[in-house]
């Protein structure tokens, strides 16, 4: 039987070992294929250093984060009430569901031409695309969360003489919150996914811009891959933060069905 500390060591050592394997395979593959497009890990590290030296890296990271978070926040601010209303009034949901289901599979990237026409060369264009990416998952998760609130909770709320709005705020919303949070995490992931493409239009900063600019200005594929790697690492960080929310005591009950 492995002891507790064995498992702890395993949790750290196994991913490190896997990362080493990936790096070795990557290096060998670059060497054997003699590619001059795909950089070796060492070149990528040098590329990151170069960017840090120029002082642009942090600015790009912060610009990307700012765009994602503002687009995402607007999606939450508009998406949560929309989802609550659709979940609460079944008629509203059956009326608007087809429209939502049609809009949902349209990639935010398809909106690019329109975004440029509407917002021109400005911060608003990429933020709008990120908003679109996060909006629909937020609406759908909130709506489904509200729909699946057990009627017994709503009945209890009515019994205590609460108004419909008070029931929505003090019963339905907290009861739906675990499921809604899962949707928020999904939406944040999509928002970050969209940032790369969104920053290929209208702006001249950010990690998405870094990638397209490195390719256009001198085919610097080491910087392209550096940008990709940073996007991956920051994406993981955002997801880890979002997962933290699920540990809050007032929602934790909704996430422990398997372990309880």
């Amino acid at each position, binding site marked *: 039987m492995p002891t507790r500390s064995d498992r702890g060591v395993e949790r750290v050592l196994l991913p490190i070992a896997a990362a080493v394997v990936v790096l070795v395979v990557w290096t060998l593959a670059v060497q054997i294929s003699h590619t001059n497009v795909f950089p070796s890990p060492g070149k990528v590290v040098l590329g990151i250093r170069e960017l840090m030296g120029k002082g642009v890296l942090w600015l790009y990271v912060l610009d990307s984060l700012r765009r994602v978070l503002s687009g995402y926040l607007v999606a939450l601010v508009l998406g949560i009430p929309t989802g609550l209303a659709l979940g609460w009034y079944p008629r509203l949901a059956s009326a608007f569901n087809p429209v939502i289901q049609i809009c949902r599979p349209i990639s935010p990237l398809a909106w690019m031409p329109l975004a440029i026409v509407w917002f021109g060369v400005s911060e608003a264009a990429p933020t709008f695309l990120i908003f679109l990416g996060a909006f629909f998952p937020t609406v759908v998760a909130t709506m489904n969360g509200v729909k699946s609130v*057990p009627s*017994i*909770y709503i*009945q*209890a709320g*009515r*019994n*205590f*003489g609460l108004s419909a709005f008070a029931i929505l705020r*003090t*019963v339905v919303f*907290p*009861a739906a*919150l675990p499921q809604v949070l899962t949707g928020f995490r999904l939406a944040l992931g999509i928002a970050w996914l969209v940032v790369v493409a969104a920053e290929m239009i209208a702006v001249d900063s950010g990690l998405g811009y870094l990638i397209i600019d490195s390719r256009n200005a001198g085919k610097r594929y080491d910087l392209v891959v550096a940008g990709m790697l940073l996007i991956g690492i920051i994406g993981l960080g955002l997801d880890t933060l979002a997962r933290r929310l699920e540990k809050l*005591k*007032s*929602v*934790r*009950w*909704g996430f*422990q069905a398997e372990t*309880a």
Partner: protein
Amino acid sequence: MVVKSALAANAAPEAAKVAIWGVSMTFETDGKPIDVLTMLDLDVREGEFVCVLGPSGCGKSTLLNIVGGFLRPTRGTVLIDGEPVVGPDPRRIFVFQERGVFPWLTVEGNIGFGLASLAAEERARRIAYYVKLVGLSGFEKVYPQELSGGMKQRVEVARALAVNPDVLYLDEPFGALDSITRLIMRGELLRIWEAEKKTILFVTHDIEESVQLADRVVVMSTRPATIRRIVEIDMPHPRDLSSRRYIELRDSIFEEIGLAHKI
């Protein structure tokens, strides 16, 4: 004068806390009407503990939902203090199985749920009082997830009592508990009932439970439900569960339902 007193006699249900008058309920399933309750009449006195006893699916929960104002009967009315019930009311609280406890609130938060309109001080005082009454001292800040079934049930009873209702409706409240916890909870409920003097309408399918708790047991038939018999349990609390009277009463209900009490 004579006419007046005759009227008063007819209006006798007004004296009852809860008066159920000719209540019938028909549900529509796949276009076919299904009679669930037919012409039920029942009076419950102020402070009385009445058990509605019947087999699963006989419509006793439907009856409780009608009395609680969550369902409208197809025919008939329910009067409480002489006024027709038109919807749920915080003066009469429904207690479900422990599933009704809000998992996103602590024990305190649950018990204080119906007290939002009170000043913080009064609210805290009442929460403290009912935490103690149901024996949950020390668990104020704990979330329901970390509580046992019996403790969750206590939280729900305390949440109902905290708004100081005159009537409690209990729908098979101890159905999900193990048999030992169930016995303890029955004792607790009786203790609380004696301390708080509430009128209680308690739905159960457990014959023993009804005889242990109630002043009167209303024995229901299978669907469409009618009242077969009302059994007066003329035993003071605490009741001796091996006394002859207890066994007589229990067995008469077994017979009424048509069950031989042998296995």
